[in-house]
C-alpha cells in the first residue's frame, strides 16, 4: 500500500473509461423459477479525472422451484438493487469506491467497497487491491390464512461480510493479455435461509422422511484464485480462456473453466460464443437425506452446496448503429445474448418423486437435473 502511495507523484496519467448508458432486460427461466427484470447502468466522467457510475437492477421472481414445491407454496418476490460508484484518477493511480444496496421483502443487504488500481511498467502492468465490507439483515415472511405474506416480527438476524482481493493484469505480447486475481471472502452471522429444511429418515412418516430446519456454521471463509487470458487473432477476432479455483471452510472445492470467442463481421456486427464448465463437491455438512433427526451440529440440504457439474453454452450478437438525429451519441449498439445452463446434481435427489409404495423409497429418488434459459436483450449508448 505504501509502495503504491509512494508512486503517486504522477509524471504520467492514464485515462478513465468512456461515458455510456446501458438498458438491459434479463430473463431466467428454469427449474420452475422465472426471474426477469431490468438493469440500467449509467457512467459519466466529470472532467478527465473523475467518474461516477450508477446502476438500478430489479429481479422479479416467480418461484415454484423444487425447494419451494417441497416445503412451501409458490411465491412471487421482487428484489431491487441500487449501486453507486466513484472513480478518481490521479496520474497512473485510480481510486474507486462504491456502495451497493439490495432489498427484498425478507432480506436486506448493503455492501461498501474501496479499491486502488495502478498502471505501471510502461502501462503493461496493472495492479489492483480491493477491500469490501457487507452487512446483511435476514427476516422471515409467514403466510397468513388469507394467503398473504407478512413479516414474522419475532425473527431478525444479521450477517457481516468482508472481502479482500488483489489483481494483476499483464500485457504479455502485442496480442496477448493476462489477468490473475486472488480473493478472500469471510462471512459471519446468520448464513442460511430461514425457510429451508433438511430431511432425515423417519419410518413413522408416510413418505419415509421428515423435515427439520437447516443449521449452518456461523462463519465461512473462502479463497478463490483465477487466471484469464485473451488473445487477438490476426484476422481480427478474440479468444479468451479462464480458470478459477475455489475452496472454503465449509469443505467446498470448485473448479470453473470457460472459453469464449468473439468474432466481428463487417463494421457493425460482433458475435460471441462461450462454453463454461463448473464442478463442485458438496459442503461437509451437506446431505440429501440424513439418517436420523439431529444427526450432526450442522445440517444442509441446499442444492447450492451439493456435489454437481454445471455446463453453459452461450451465444451473443451485437449490432452497432448510428443515430444521426442525436449527434452527441458517439456509438450505440443493440445486443442479444442467450445462455443455456444445465446443472447435473450428483447427490441431490428430486424428493417430489418419493413413492415408497411403488419402489421409490426415500433416498432412491432420481437425481435432480436443472436446466435453464437465460436471455439478455440490451441497448448500449456511448456519449
Amino acid at each position, binding site marked *: 500500500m*505504501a*509502495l503504491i502511495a509512494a508512486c503517486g507523484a504522477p509524471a*504520467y*496519467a492514464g485515462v478513465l473509461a468512456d461515458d455510456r448508458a*446501458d438498458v*438491459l432486460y434479463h430473463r431466467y427461466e428454469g427449474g420452475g423459477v422465472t426471474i426477469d427484470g431490468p*438493469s440500467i*447502468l449509467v457512467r459519466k466522467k466529470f472532467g478527465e479525472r473523475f467518474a461516477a457510475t450508477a446502476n438500478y437492477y430489479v429481479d422479479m421472481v416467480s418461484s415454484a422451484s423444487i425447494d419451494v414445491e417441497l416445503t412451501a407454496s409458490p411465491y412471487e418476490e421482487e428484489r431491487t438493487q441500487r449501486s453507486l460508484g466513484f472513480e478518481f484518477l490521479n496520474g497512473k493511480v485510480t481510486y474507486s469506491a462504491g456502495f451497493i444496496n439490495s432489498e427484498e421483502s425478507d432480506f436486506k443487504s448493503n455492501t461498501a467497497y474501496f479499491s486502488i*488500481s495502478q498502471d505501471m*511498467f*510502461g*502501462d*503493461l502492468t*496493472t495492479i*489492483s487491491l480491493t477491500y469490501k465490507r457487507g452487512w446483511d439483515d435476514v427476516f422471515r415472511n409467514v403466510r397468513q390464512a388469507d394467503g398473504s405474506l407478512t413479516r414474522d416480527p419475532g425473527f431478525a438476524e444479521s450477517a457481516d461480510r468482508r*472481502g479482500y*482481493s488483489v*489483481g494483476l*493484469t*499483464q*500485457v504479455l*505480447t*502485442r*496480442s496477448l*493479455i493476462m*489477468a490473475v*486475481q486472488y480473493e*478472500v*471472502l469471510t462471512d459471519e452471522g446468520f448464513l442460511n435461509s430461514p425457510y429451508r429444511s433438511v430431511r432425515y429418515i423417519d419410518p413413522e412418516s408416510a413418505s419415509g422422511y421428515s423435515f427439520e430446519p437447516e443449521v449452518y456454521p456461523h462463519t465461512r471463509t*473462502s*479463497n*478463490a484464485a*483465477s487466471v*484469464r487470458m*485473451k488473445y*487477438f487473432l490476426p484476422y*481480427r*477476432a*478474440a479468444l479468451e480462456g479462464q480458470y*478459477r479455483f*475455489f475452496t*472454503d471452510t465449509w469443505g*467446498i472445492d*470448485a473448479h*470453473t473453466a470457460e472459453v469464449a470467442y*468473439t468474432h*466481428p463481421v463487417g463494421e457493425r456486427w*460482433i458475435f460471441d460464443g462461450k462454453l463454461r464448465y*463448473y464442478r*463442485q463437491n458438496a*459442503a461437509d455438512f451437506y446431505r440429501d437425506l440424513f439418517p436420523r433427526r439431529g444427526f450432526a451440529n450442522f445440517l444442509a440440504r441446499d442444492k*447450492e*452446496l451439493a456435489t454437481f457439474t454445471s455446463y453453459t453454452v452461450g451465444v451473443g450478437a451485437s449490432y452497432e448503429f448510428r443515430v444521426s438525429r442525436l449527434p452527441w451519441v458517439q456509438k450505440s449498439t443493440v*445486443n442479444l445474448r442467450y*445462455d443455456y445452463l444445465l*446443472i447435473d446434481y450428483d447427490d441431490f435427489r428430486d424428493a417430489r418423486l418419493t413413492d415408497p409404495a411403488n419402489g421409490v423409497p426415500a433416498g432412491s429418488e432420481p437425481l435432480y437435473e436443472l436446466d435453464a434459459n*437465460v436471455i*439478455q436483450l*440490451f441497448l*448500449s449508448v456511448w456519449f
Partner: protein
Amino acid sequence: MRTSRVRIAMSLLALGVAACGPIEPWVKPYERENLADPIMAFDRNPVSTAYLDHVYEAREGARGAVGSAGGGCGCN
C-alpha cells in the same frame, strides 16, 4: 520490532523492483493497436457480465475472483 520488519520487507521489495529495472517494456505504446481494440476488453458489456456473474453466484457454491482491470490503449 514490527516496524523494522516492515521496512526490511519494503527495502527487499524495492530492490526486487530495481533488479527488474533494466528490463524495458517489451510492447511499446505505439504497438498497442490490437490491445486497444474494443473486442479485446475483458469486460466489453459490464451490465451483461454483472448479471451473468449474479446468475452463477446465486446457484453455485463458489464466489469471488471474477472481474479484472487493465489493458486497453495505455494512453496518457
